[in-house]
């Protein structure tokens, strides 16, 4: 009973504070379509802070924007020299690593987000990857390698200071999605923080889908692999026969 009362009191005290500032945001695209000439995409994320009262405290408001692709399990392998050649020897499993992950902030990440908030909301790149310790002794090296390789391919991005925040009210940023996107529901998050603590969170899903020919081919290949294989062969044979016929026609 006392615990309930205490938590109610806490809620009452906290509630007006948490609701004093809220984030309203939008994305420039409702969905991303992977078409035949898809070459990556750029999404613009913008929004404003709605206030019921004048901003509390001295600490400035900060904005963090994350876009996360569907998480997938991955295997990270390490090469080692065996019999004079470089061979994959050790491997570590990562239970769920986002296929794409971008973090943009209005200032250095460690200044705008406390460690505990990061732990809870999984904002920074290492935290967004879920790795359970396996038999491999240096799991850390493998996760670091995963981040390094995906960062090189622009699949993981940390853009500190990339969010423009005007007069503590209006903000916008753009995130570049590379061409090799994996299909699925992407999740855009906008976090409003003050003094490292999260004030409000806004979430929106961003579906990424193959469309048109891409969709047809992909679905056929996975759902009717035999028909797809036969179709590939028919195309190849027709093309081979056609080429031979055309060139014979040209020569005569």
């Amino acid at each position: 009973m006392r615990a309930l009362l205490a938590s109610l009191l806490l809620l009452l005290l906290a509630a007006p504070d948490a609701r004093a500032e809220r984030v309203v945001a939008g994305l420039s695209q409702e969905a991303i379509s992977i078409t035949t000439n898809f070459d990556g995409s750029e999404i613009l994320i913008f929004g404003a802070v709605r206030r019921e009262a004048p901003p509390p405290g001295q600490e400035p408001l900060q904005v963090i924007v994350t876009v996360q692709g569907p998480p997938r399990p991955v295997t990270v392998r390490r090469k080692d020299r065996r019999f004079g050649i470089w061979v994959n020897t050790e491997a570590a499993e990562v239970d769920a690593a986002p296929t794409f992950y971008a973090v943009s902030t209005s200032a250095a990440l460690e200044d705008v987000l406390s460690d505990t908030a990061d732990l809870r909301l999984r904002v920074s790149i290492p935290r967004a990857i879920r790795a359970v310790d396996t038999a491999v002794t240096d799991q850390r090296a493998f996760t670091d390698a995963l981040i390094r390789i995906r960062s090189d391919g622009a699949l993981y991005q940390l853009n500190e200071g990339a969010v423009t925040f005007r007069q503590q009210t209006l903000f916008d940023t753009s995130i570049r999605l590379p061409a090799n996107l994996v299909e699925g529901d992407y999740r855009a998050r906008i976090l409003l923080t003050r003094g490292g603590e999260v004030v409000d969170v806004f979430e929106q899903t961003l579906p990424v889908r193959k469309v048109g020919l891409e969709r047809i081919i992909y679905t056929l290949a996975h759902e009717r692999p035999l028909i797809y294989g036969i179709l590939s062969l028919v195309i190849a044979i027709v093309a081979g026969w056609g080429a031979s016929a055309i060139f014979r026609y040209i020569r005569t």
Partner: protein
Amino acid sequence: MQIYLPIAEVSVNAFLLLGLGGLVGVLSGMFGVGGGFLMTPLLFFIGIPPAVAVATEANQIVASSFSGVLAHLRRKTVDLKMGTVLMLGGLVGAAAGVQVFALLTELGQVDLLVRLCYVVFLGIIGMLMFFESLRAIRRARSPDAALPPKRRGRGWLQKLPFKMRFRTSGLYISVIPPLAVGVFVGLLAAIMGVGGGFIMVPAMIYLLGMPTKVVVGTSLFQIIFVTGFATLMHAVTNYTVDMVLAVLLLIGGVIGAQIGTRIGVKMKAEQLRILLALMVLAVCGRLALDLLLEPAELYSIGTARAGH
């Protein structure tokens, strides 16, 4: 113009693919080889996942071999009976090869296996071809050393049972060696994403003793079936055949092959073979360096295979 490949799930320049197809097509037309052994490593270099490169290249080889075999059928330079025996062996080999490929993909060693196969076979074939053509050129220069030693040293092969008559080739030999050659080449075709002509042709000439004029046609005939079968198996087991990639490569390939044939006619056979040998050795060397030198990135990411 960038194009997104639906199965490989990467975006590449369409003209680059057309150009690669054309370039390899020219070379294959010039030298009368399938070009798979050049195309598959080139696809690795431009960032196509190895599994997709191997499966798709098998599909493309069907197209170029079909185009080639039509010409040979008209000239009656295909030994259909021998081709069928080789094909039967090839189908067994390809079926096994696709399973080996799937197993090694899971173990994360497929890259290594494919590269090792390339280095070993390209190395051997390249060296053999190189020295053979050097000898041929030297022979041509000094007429005293004419008359190449006609070695018919297939002694123990003649003693094997199950003899069969191959009329077009003018042979009466056991079916075991052609079957074995078929299995072996089928296995390599599935693992390396090649037609295997570069192994099949020497094996037919030196091991089976087939007359040179029927060798290329017969090899193409059986390659169609073996790579066609490998394509189907890859499509069903590994879902790695990329239709869009295959179409782009074969458009470039068939045009290139026609140009290459014209160039090839104007060159001397020995010169052609030396050039081909050097090219084979260059590809082999490039792949060997990747295995021998310490890679810049020791780690690699593999997708843990989600069940289908």
